């Protein structure tokens, strides 16, 4: 799968030229943190005309993890905490996991949830279950595998977030004004484009599912412009994404999880935007095993992340941005992960 054509400067520039012919001011939200990163990585924002504003949405699972989660994890003693890498620098109310590790906590970063299951053979292990629909199937499978192995030493802290309910919550908010969504390619690979049908039907705006190569992104923007007057969901990423998504992955999710509420750092609690571990698998539910409560603790009250996540303001409109809140000392979720919109702006657009 040679990606060179999807990075070919001549094709990308031709598409950009067509985008430049459009003169109306529009605001599109790229929902996904990996899109934010890719846009920064290829310097695309500067190549777009000024009338096309891209704002970054809440699609960064690390960024939307509430501070209370970190606090609760730090309280757990004598167990291994296995997590995806960039969560270890997310500030709790007082400490990060990295800091707790320096004080003696056993915190491991893993690439795959299956590695966490392997760690549990040596020592009681909690896997910090962050992620959207892309990451959830693998974690669901890992729980099933733990059941097959009767691995009592393993549990998962379910912090999963679902994208469609979050988009619904954003659109219900009257203050959020966007003309369309650039929708996450790999989440869509699992849930299919049909998961977004409610957006044009209910809210009268469209969206384009697109990939992460520079050509994917500019084509996505071009297609957004083309459908601005007849809102619909368009699939630019059809080499991977289907209408119904990956049935096997969706079935695995449903087998292990049921829909529940979730607390999003910066956005608060969004109904039906999370997943609970079903009773059949409750022995692997770290919430029950360790009696953990996830609350919505907001840290610094001057932090405007919730407005950034909703696209109401740009990162540099926040009084803390780049002054008090930096990647070395992140205050809010958008600065926490390198793909958070504030971090991406700090890194690429300052």
């Amino acid at each position: 799968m040679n990606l060179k054509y999807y990075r070919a400067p001549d094709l990308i520039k031709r598409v950009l030229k067509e985008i430049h012919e459009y003169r109306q001011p529009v605001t599109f939200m790229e929902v996904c943190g990996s899109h934010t990163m890719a846009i920064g990585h290829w310097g695309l924002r500067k190549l777009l005309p000024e009338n096309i504003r891209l704002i970054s949405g809440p699609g960064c699972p690390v960024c939307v993890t509430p501070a209370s989660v970190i606090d609760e994890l730090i309280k757990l003693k004598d167990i291994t905490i296995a997590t995806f890498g960039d969560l270890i620098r997310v500030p709790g109310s007082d400490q990060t996991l990295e800091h707790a590790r320096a004080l003696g906590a056993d915190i491991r970063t893993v690439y795959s949830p299956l590695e966490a299951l392997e760690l549990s053979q040596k020592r009681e292990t909690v896997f910090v279950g962050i992620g959207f629909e892309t990451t959830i199937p693998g974690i669901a499978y890992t729980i099933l595998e733990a059941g097959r192995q009767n691995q009592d030493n393993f549990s998962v802290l379910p912090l999963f977030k679902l994208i469609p309910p979050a988009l619904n919550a954003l659109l219900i908010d009257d203050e959020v004004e966007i003309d369309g969504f650039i929708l996450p390619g790999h989440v869509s690979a699992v849930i299919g484009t049909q998961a977004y049908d409610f957006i044009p039907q209910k809210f009268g705006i469209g969206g384009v599912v697109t990939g992460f190569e520079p050509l994917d992104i500019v084509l996505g923007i071009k297609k957004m412009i083309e459908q601005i007057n007849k809102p619909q969901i368009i699939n630019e990423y059809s080499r991977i994404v289907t209408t119904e998504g990956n049935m096997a992955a969706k079935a695995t999710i449903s087998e292990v999880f049921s829909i529940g509420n979730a607390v999003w750092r910066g956005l608060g609690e969004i109904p039906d935007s999370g997943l609970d571990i079903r009773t059949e698998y409750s022995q692997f539910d770290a919430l029950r095993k360790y009696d953990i409560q996830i609350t919505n603790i907001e840290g610094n009250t001057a932090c405007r992340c919730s407005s950034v996540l909703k696209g109401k303001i740009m990162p540099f409109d926040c009084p803390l941005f780049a002054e008090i809140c930096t990647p070395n000392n992140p205050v809010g979720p958008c600065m926490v992960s390198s793909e958070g919109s504030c971090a991406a702006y700090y890194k690429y657009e300052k």
Partner: protein
Amino acid sequence: MCLAIPGRVVRRTDNNMGLVDLGGVTKEISLIFLPDVVAGDWIILHTGFALERISEEDAMETISLLQEAFGQEKTCLSL
């Protein structure tokens, strides 16, 4: 959200696992969510799991249509 990279299935192995070629290096990953993929198929990989098949035809068609639209010399595409 969600880094995923393309790879090509070299062969299926036991327990719904498979060896994929990620561009010069191979790695064993889970194919549990793609029961029908066979050697030679392209997939995308995320946190150790193949999530979806990549349609080469579709990828090539996108590029061909663009090249046509821009009046470019059509390249012989080998993706």
